[in-house]
């Protein structure tokens, strides 16, 4: 944490509302403190932000560029707009891209009703995807004794990668491949069940926004995520 920034007090406007914040806070955290909701997918409280999903993009007055609210620090006099028609349009199209990328079949998914991707579609009023679905043929890794990894439902938010490296300290998960071929993998792309680094702590399961990682034995709609990770991260921050 940057101590000089943390000691600065800045004032800014988010959607016209005057906000006060510490200089080391992100636009997202200040917005949420002030009751302004900015939709997010890859962000997870307690994990490092990476700005990958682009759902939380906001406009900042005076800049033609858009900024990821999760990973942009507030500055003095900033005027942020979080929900313009342009942003809504972009968010929706990004969501469409995500749905078209892999095989999201909500009806038979263990996370049906508890899925952040599905909830985001509802929130943003997405009723159909205008882009053709790609229907890639992807693997399901059920070699772990307790969990399953299903690439069909992965949105590459990298929460599993981060929680495993940052909170559990095991770094079992990582990303391999590039572009549309990118995949979340365990160890050096070995079956999860054969992983020697995995502690089976289940943190990745519970931060996964969809059901790309889920517990064995769950049927459609039964996989409910618990949110103990943020709490764990917050407690650690206090002791640090």
């Amino acid at each position, binding site marked *: 944490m940057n101590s000089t920034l943390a000691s600065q007090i800045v004032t800014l406007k988010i959607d016209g509302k005057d906000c006060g914040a510490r200089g080391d806070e992100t636009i997202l955290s200040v917005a949420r403190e002030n009751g302004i909701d900015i939709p997010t997918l890859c962000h997870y409280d307690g994990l490092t932000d990476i700005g990958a999903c682009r759902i939380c993009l906001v406009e900042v007055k005076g800049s033609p560029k858009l900024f990821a609210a999760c990973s942009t620090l507030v500055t003095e006099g900033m005027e942020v707009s979080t929900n313009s028609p342009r942003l809504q349009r972009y968010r929706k199209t990004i969501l469409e891209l995500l*749905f078209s990328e892999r*095989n*999201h*079949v*909500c*009806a*038979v*998914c263990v996370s*049906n*009703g508890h899925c952040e991707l*599905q*909830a985001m*579609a*509802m929130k943003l*009023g997405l*009723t*159909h*995807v*205008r882009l*053709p*679905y790609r*229907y*890639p*043929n*992807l693997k399901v890794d059920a070699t772990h004794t307790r969990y399953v990894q299903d690439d069909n439902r992965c949105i590459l938010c990298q929460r599993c990668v981060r929680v495993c490296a940052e909170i559990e300290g095991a770094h079992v998960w990582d990303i391999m491949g590039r572009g549309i071929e990118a995949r979340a993998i365990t160890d050096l792309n070995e079956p999860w069940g054969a992983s020697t680094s995995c502690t089976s702590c289940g943190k990745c399961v519970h931060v996964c926004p969809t059901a790309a990682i889920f517990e064995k034995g769950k049927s459609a709609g039964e996989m409910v995520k618990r949110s103990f990770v943020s709490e764990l991260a917050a407690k650690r921050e206090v002791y640090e």
Partner: protein
Amino acid sequence: MSKARIATVWLDGCSGCHMSLLDMDEKIITLASLIEMVYSPTVDMKQYPQNVDVCLIEGAASSDEDIHKLKIIRLNTKCLVALGDCAITGNVPSMRNMYKVEEILNRAYVENAVLQQQIPRIGVPVLQTRCRPIHEIVKVDVFVPGCPPPSETIYNCVADLLAGKTPDIGATTRFGK
């Protein structure tokens, strides 16, 4: 006032959306008073009629027949409603898209069959290489997601359309509901 001409169509789906449509309890009486069902799996009508006001389509487009039907429907329908996830996303039927058609047919009719192991070829529509959402084939006016969409959503949607209003679909349903 003349009754609205309504059609429902069942393509590649499980008929669950039609079940949901019929599952609206006493409201079906209100609905029935407003509409004339001109074409539906529940109505014995062989040919898709002309001048249909609203057509609810369940199921994805999987075969050449589905595509043929959709084109006729579009030509003769004012408002086309994609009813349920199969029509909108491909849903479960589209789970075959990762494989070749021959592989699937072989799996279903030969490998997993006990009697008469043969792939049916005569008198059945030919499967397309991919099962697709119907809006990839024809223009769709209203999307009602859900697996199946709750009957309340269907009722409200039809009622709103008949009243000339834009139905608020997102409020009561979602993908996979």
